[in-house]
């Protein structure tokens, strides 16, 4: 007589047999989901069935949380699971730890094949990638005009650079026709050449949803685009062929908007800083020359031209004073608007000096300023520059000595 098992012992034994079987510890099973239930605990209970049979399945919360999609009744899936026996009911079940949609494995293989092929052809070469312009005068977007993606882009652009210029090429971004429509968009922008940069955008989704961005013809169109192109497809972790072939990959559509448009305030302060440096540099040069003149004016050898030196020095003082005033005003309120700053700088322009009645004499032959009678001979042409134009003169007589 063989030994008699208790029910518990039997179930435990069968459980151990199943657990020890090398095939049943990591088995991949294809089937359709039915009787799907998600418990508050986070565990998922369902059956997998085909035409003839079905098997009970459970996916515990820790594993279920990593599924890339929410399972639904009627979905055809491939699960990776271990077989076990539920002791209490003596019921055979699969403990599922991975689940993918049926066919995704094929898609992934196709993606890898195309990626390898295009990479070998050089479509992803960094040397071919075009620089994204610093300040695009007009931005072209190929995307769906409905939904969050376009509003996200518009929102980010408005925040960074309020007077941006955006042109939307509406296109399907999933489904059979999508790849062709996106391609037409890229081609249209290239033909019309009215935007400085193109963004291809779509929100996150499953691998099937994003499949149109793995289209070979689309990849080639992007490669051939003369206009720099940013790919902004899906979320951070989703990679498509478009991402590899584009000139720049943005992790999300909002990020693409950040990458494509600089912050206006930053650009303004950049201009401001350079203009300040410009003024300061000139002021410094004038100060150096003034000191030099002061030094020369004390030299006895130069006693006779002293008055001239003094007057030059005075002129420089005035110029320097005006510059200092202007600079001080700029310093006092560094936050002041750039255009006002420029207006003030403009006031220092020699043209403004001219408008106050001063004039500039130049030798029309050489174009150089006439600063001394030594540079003029009687009969020579002299050009007098006034604020609003030129007077062409001829020197009649030359008289030495100061007039003013």
């Amino acid at each position, binding site marked *: 007589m063989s030994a008699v098992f208790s029910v518990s012992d039997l179930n435990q034994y069968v459980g151990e047999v199943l657990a020890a079987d090398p095939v049943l510890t990591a088995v991949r099973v294809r089937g359709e989901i039915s009787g799907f239930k998600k418990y508050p605990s986070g565990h998922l209970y369902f059956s997998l069935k085909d035409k003839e049979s079905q098997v009970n399945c459970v996916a515990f919360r820790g594993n279920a949380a990593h599924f890339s999609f929410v399972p639904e009744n009627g979905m055809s899936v491939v699960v990776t699971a271990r077989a076990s026996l539920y002791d209490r009911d003596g019921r055979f079940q699969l403990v599922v730890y991975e689940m993918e949609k049926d066919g995704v494995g094929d898609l992934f293989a196709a993606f890898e094949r195309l990626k390898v092929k295009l990479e070998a052809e050089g479509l992803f070469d960094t040397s071919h990638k075009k620089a994204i*312009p*610093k*300040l695009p*005068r*007009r931005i072209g977007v190929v995307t769906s*005009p*409905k939904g969050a993606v*376009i*509003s996200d882009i*518009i929102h980010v652009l408005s925040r960074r*650079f*309020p*007077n*941006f*210029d*955006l*042109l*939307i*090429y*509406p296109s399907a971004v999933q489904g059979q026709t999508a790849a062709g429509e996106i391609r037409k968009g890229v081609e*249209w922008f290239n033909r019309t050449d009215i935007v400085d940069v193109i963004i291809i955008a779509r929100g996150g989704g499953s691998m099937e949803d994003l499949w149109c961005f793995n289209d070979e013809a689309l990849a080639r169109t992007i490669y051939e685009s003369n206009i720099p192109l940013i790919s902004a497809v899906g979320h951070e972790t989703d990679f498509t062929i478009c991402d590899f072939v584009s000139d720049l990959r943005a992790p999300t559509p909002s990020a693409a908007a950040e990458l494509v448009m600089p912050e*206006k305030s930053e*650009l*303004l302060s*950049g*201009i401001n800083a*350079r*203009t300040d*440096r*410009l*003024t300061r*540099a*000139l002021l*410094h*040069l*004038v100060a*150096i*020359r003034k000191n030099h003149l002061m030094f020369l004016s004390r030299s006895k050898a130069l006693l006779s031209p002293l008055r001239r030196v003094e007057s030059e020095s005075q002129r420089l003082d005035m110029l320097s004073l005006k510059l200092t005033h202007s600079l001080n005003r700029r310093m006092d309120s560094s936050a002041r608007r*750039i*255009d006002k700053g*420029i207006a003030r*700088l*403009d006031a220092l*322009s*020699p043209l403004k000096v001219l408008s106050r009645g001063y004039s500039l004499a130049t030798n029309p032959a050489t174009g*150089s*300023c006439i600063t001394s009678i030594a540079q003029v001979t009687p009969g020579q042409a002299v050009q007098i520059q006034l604020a609003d134009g030129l007077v062409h003169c001829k020197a009649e007589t030359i008289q030495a000595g100061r007039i003013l």
Partner: protein
Amino acid sequence: MNQSQEYEKLSFEEAMTELESVVNKLDAGEGTLDESISLFQKGVLLSKLCSSRLEEIEKRVRILTEDTNGTKKEIDFNEDGITSIEKE
């Protein structure tokens, strides 16, 4: 002086690079006072140009539509999905 006409063609990026180089030259302090003043004037022109480049972008959000002949046309886009009056 055709300097300003010449500058008119510069993009924001080019004008900014040119401005930077003018500032660096003036900072170096070489050359005569005349040359320095002319550099300064160049700088002022470029600085004006840079800021005007920022303002000359017209705030627009437009979308392409196709009329019955299949010709593409731009119309104003608004996020509610309602597109407003057409502009040629």
